[in-house]
């Protein structure tokens, strides 16, 4: 416990995310179902000074969303899982284990099995941007002050800024899959220059076929070997199996939830997509993450069994597929649209994982596990469509639009995501022609709240959904 306090207080981003979890849990525990029912001064009195100082920075809309009965259970479970992840992270840091930054496409099982500290360094900023007003804007500025221009992706600018200012532990190794983009690849090279961390490349071939996959599996094996050589640590088969089993269990609910979202009405609240995506990046990390996925699934299942949806009663459901993805700094956005316009969130470019392709990892031996994890990574969001012809992304979304009975599509284009923006027109045309649904495109930044202010984003989206109501 004392050891944990070390890393926890030393790295402000870990401490902040941890505190945010406490705050959300505490707020939900009061039983209030809206911010109006919350006694904020009383709440702040209950909290440590550090926590209390964060309260005014929380988006009021986020607080409103998490207190709603449909979001409480999942939020509570998710925050528990994140706290467990952070606790393990801090304990490992305090034991002096090497830190490995794994890009979100590679989930942490292998690194945990090598007794490393897997820090998906894009993820902590995502939580902070989602919960706190302008959560990581300053970190982005720090990186830009070094000469990195605005069109480079904030997913790396934010954590690099945090590393520069000591808010996150410096990595010893960084594992980079070369999907999805030049921007992230360049920023890992920049981080190597800046922080001296060794970048281990997992090369992702162009194409999504058998030849590409067998090459990719070899890349994974080489990655494991490189890390073993760099750290002198061996991959422990039993530990790997333990985490892979947790991951399989987690995915069972994930796939189940995808099925449920195809139902009419959609029984799964939209805000959970952001939490699910984060959970996917931490797949197999701990039992609590499995419990979170189970909670989401069971709650949605219960709703579906009673024929209930998540939009207000009496409202027309606008079933929406989000062809780019979520906008992390607008965590509350799906909930806001759900209750105002009857928008229900089906699937997005950052959540779609084709269960019929990926399935479960075979735990027979180390090779089958590496191969299974590689197959999953090959088809993870960003991994699957980031590095092949645009046709796959288009086919996926046409299929999703049809099988989920979508009424509309929204492309929340992250301005730095050039390869997606190049597809946006073809994708919109295909959805119109082949699935008969309109697409609305708007520009935003993943984490930088100043690119398109929330007020403007809401105004644009409100206009689109009003025409569909």
């Amino acid at each position, binding site marked *: 416990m004392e050891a944990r306090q070390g890393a926890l207080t030393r790295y402000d981003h870990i401490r902040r995310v941890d505190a945010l979890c406490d705050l959300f849990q505490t707020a939900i525990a009061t039983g209030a179902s809206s911010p109006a029912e919350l006694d904020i001064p009383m709440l702040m009195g209950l909290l440590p000074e550090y926590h209390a100082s964060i309260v005014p920075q929380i988006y009021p809309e986020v607080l409103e969303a998490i207190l709603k009965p449909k979001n409480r259970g999942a939020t509570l479970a998710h925050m528990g899982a994140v706290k467990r992840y952070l606790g393990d992270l801090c304990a490992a840091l305090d034991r002096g284990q090497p830190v490995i930054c794994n890009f979100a496409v590679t989930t942490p099982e292998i690194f945990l099995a090598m007794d490393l500290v897997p820090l998906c360094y894009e993820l902590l900023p995502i939580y902070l941007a989602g919960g706190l007003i302008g959560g990581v804007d300053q970190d982005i500025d720090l990186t*830009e002050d070094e000469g990195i221009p605005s069109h480079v992706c904030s997913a790396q600018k934010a954590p690099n800024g945090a590393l520069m200012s000591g808010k996150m532990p410096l990595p010893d190794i960084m594992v980079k899959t070369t999907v999805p983009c030049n921007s992230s690849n360049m920023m890992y090279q920049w981080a190597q220059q800046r922080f001296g961390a060794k970048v281990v490349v997992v090369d992702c071939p162009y194409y999504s076929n058998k030849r590409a996959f067998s090459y990719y599996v070899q890349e994974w094996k080489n990655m494991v070997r490189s890390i073993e050589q760099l750290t002198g640590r061996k991959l422990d088969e039993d530990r790997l199996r333990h985490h892979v089993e947790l991951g399989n269990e987690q995915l069972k609910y994930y796939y189940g939830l995808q099925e449920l979202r195809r139902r009419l009405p959609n029984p799964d609240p939209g805000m959970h997509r952001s939490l699910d995506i984060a959970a996917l990046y931490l797949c197999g990390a701990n039992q609590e993450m499995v419990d979170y996925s189970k909670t989401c699934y069971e709650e949605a299942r219960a709703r579906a069994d009673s024929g209930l949806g998540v939009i207000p009663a009496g409202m027309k459901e606008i079933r929406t597929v989000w062809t780019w993805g979520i906008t992390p700094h607008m965590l509350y956005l799906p909930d806001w649209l759900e209750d105002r316009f009857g928008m229900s969130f089906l699937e997005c470019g950052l959540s779609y994982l084709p269960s019929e392709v990926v399935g479960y990892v075979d735990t027979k031996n180390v090779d089958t596990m590496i191969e299974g994890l590689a197959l999953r990574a090959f088809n993870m969001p960003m991994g699957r469509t980031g590095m092949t012809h645009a046709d796959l992304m288009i086919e996926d979304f046409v299929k999703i639009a049809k099988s989920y009975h979508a009424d509309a599509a929204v492309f929340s284009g992250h301005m730095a995501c050039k390869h997606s923006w190049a597809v946006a027109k073809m994708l919109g045309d295909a959805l119109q022609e082949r699935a008969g649904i309109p697409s609305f495109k708007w520009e935003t930044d993943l984490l930088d709240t100043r690119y*398109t202010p929330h*007020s*403007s984003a809401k105004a644009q989206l409100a206009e689109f959904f009003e025409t569909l109501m």
Partner: protein
Amino acid sequence: MIFAGVDVGSMTAEAVLMDDGELLASTVLVATPNPVTSATIVLERVLAESGLRAQDIAYCVSTGYGRERIPFAQHDISEISCHGKGAFWADPGIRTIIDVGGQDCKVIRIDASGDLKDFVMNDKCAAGTGRFLEGVAKTMAVHVSELGPMALEGVDPVPITSICTVFTQFDVMTFLAEGRTREDIGYGVAEALAVRVNRLVKRVGVEDRVCITGGVAKNAAVVRATEKVLGHQVCSLRVDPQIVGALGAALFARERYAKHGAQSRETRS
């Protein structure tokens, strides 16, 4: 001996006459679309004010947008060097110059001899320039010169975080509709500009003393906000901040005359 400096910007044009090391006269006027016309008029005006004739000028250096096309200048030098030179003359303790122009924002670092050490300019975006303030002033239906005094009366600055000038104007309209005072909006806008300027400052670093040049330097609210954001005092110069570029050009004219003598415009640059 008389030396002239002419600075033609996108929004204003300035001319300075110096008699050896002494500032003799200066003029500022609103620029015309044609830089040559602007330069000609502003020089005529400053000559008329000081009772001198064009033939009295021993050497003239032009700077600013269109600096190469000024027919009566013997040489042209970038406004970056000129602002450094002019500011150093006005105060030899100056090491960092922030020039907020109509379309460009520059941060200039000079050494202990007043020579250019490093510089950075904004990218194409209008954020952090005079144009940004003009846009806001237009939205608020006030003259840009009223913005500063108005903003100084503000007590609670509105939060303006958007990077984009268009979105800022949208925000300003929203604040007006919400009933926020013009003073608070002006204050918020000044802070937003200072934040943007500070982003550039960080790229090259800052060393005391710091000054602001260009028309925006006359906006006291921007100066105050910049001091706050930068954490450095902003020194006021003993000359009109708007003529610093032209002043630097005139100083270069004197230097070049001493080195090369009177000459016609070189073909090279």
